[in-house]
């Protein structure tokens, strides 16, 4: 066991971790932040996406020990200070960008990472960016619409089928 210290959603936490403890296990099992989901555990689905030092990362494919000293952001830290949904989350609700919701935390974290670098992405850019995030419910169209809307663009403009 080694002791790690990191900032998670703005709060500093220190805990002992096993060498083979994944970041997602640390978040879910030690910190009980269960919003970060494990869909595949094989780096394919993106349900476990979080931000580490501002960059999108699959938390199932990084060790907790490697996040020592890092700033980690998870879905639990995404809401506005008053507890209301932030603009991306609200857009997912407004545009029906989720059904079962399993992929949604990863989708929202991916969308936030995209919009930070590219505040008004095209439909093609959004689709390309989400290549590592799999949704088995929505068929993606409404997710794309939500991200278009969250970036202040006309969600109605996305290509039909």
């Amino acid at each position, binding site marked *: 066991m080694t002791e790690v210290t990191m900032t998670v959603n703005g709060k500093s936490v220190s805990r002992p971790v096993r060498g083979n403890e994944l970041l997602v296990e640390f978040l879910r099992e030690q910190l009980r932040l269960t919003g970060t989901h494990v869909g595949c555990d094989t*780096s394919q689905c993106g349900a476990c996406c979080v931000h580490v030092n501002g960059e*999108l990362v699959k938390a199932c*494919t*990084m*060790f907790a020990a*490697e996040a020592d000293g890092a700033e980690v952001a998870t879905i639990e830290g995404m809401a506005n200070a008053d507890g209301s949904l932030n603009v991306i989350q609200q857009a997912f609700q407004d545009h029906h960008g989720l059904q079962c919701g399993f992929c949604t935390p990863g989708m929202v974290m991916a969308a936030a990472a995209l919009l930070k670098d590219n505040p008004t992405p095209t439909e093609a850019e959004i689709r390309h960016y989400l290549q*590592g995030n799999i949704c088995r419910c929505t068929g993606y169209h409404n997710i794309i619409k939500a991200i278009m809307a969250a970036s202040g663009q006309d969600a109605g403009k996305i290509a039909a089928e």
Partner: protein
Amino acid sequence: MYSFDIERPKSVADAVAALGADEAQPIAGGQTLIPTLKQRLASPSKLVALSGIEEMKYVRRDGDTLVIGGGTTHGTIARETAEHFPGLAGLAARIGDPAVRNRGTIGGSIANNDPSACYPSAALACGATIVTDKREIAADDYFQGMFMTALEEGEIVTEIRFPIPEKSAYMKFEQIASRFPLVGVFVAKFADKVGVGVTGASNDGVFRWSEAEQALGSNFAADAVSGLTAPDASDMISDLHGTGAYRAHLVGVMTKRAVAAAS
């Protein structure tokens, strides 16, 4: 996963020392190694994480050479080589997905030498030099078949030096589920020669297609590839995603597309 310790050195020297331990193994981005550990296909006693070593993360131009630190991520390479070496930037930008590119490194990819990895094709086509903590190895000597390289136990890839071509492009025909290349071809045109590196296709791992290099050396046009005989189908990988003959055919098609796209 089996249990192991993880150590995070801050310098190459400390990493090399840590790797002296029995059954110690480096981990860079972990995008290949962590899935391998989960399947219990590796059982290191200790992982030596290279991600904290700042001196292995850089992209810089040195005359006609692009010099990249072994710990540089695909995402950084996609951004920082766009101006000087767009062919390589395009290759890096299409590896995996954004989250994979934020962790995975060029050193890890070159060290692993997966038969479908993208960078090895660029390294061979450009005649890159692989620099380790001990020595410099020419790409032609470095890649030695699927998952096989000239690296010795505990040796770390610290830098890759790419001669910058006048024009280049990478064309990747994606295997639709994994998005690794089913066949990927990197074409690099220099003043005095053309390099063609092929990944994903051969049972012997990444290779140079020398017939195409010669033909393109005298006429750098997609048509120059048309008359060539495709590599022997019996040497190509045959699996549920495509037969050897299919891959052999794709080598020609991807080479032509890369020539047409080269910039």
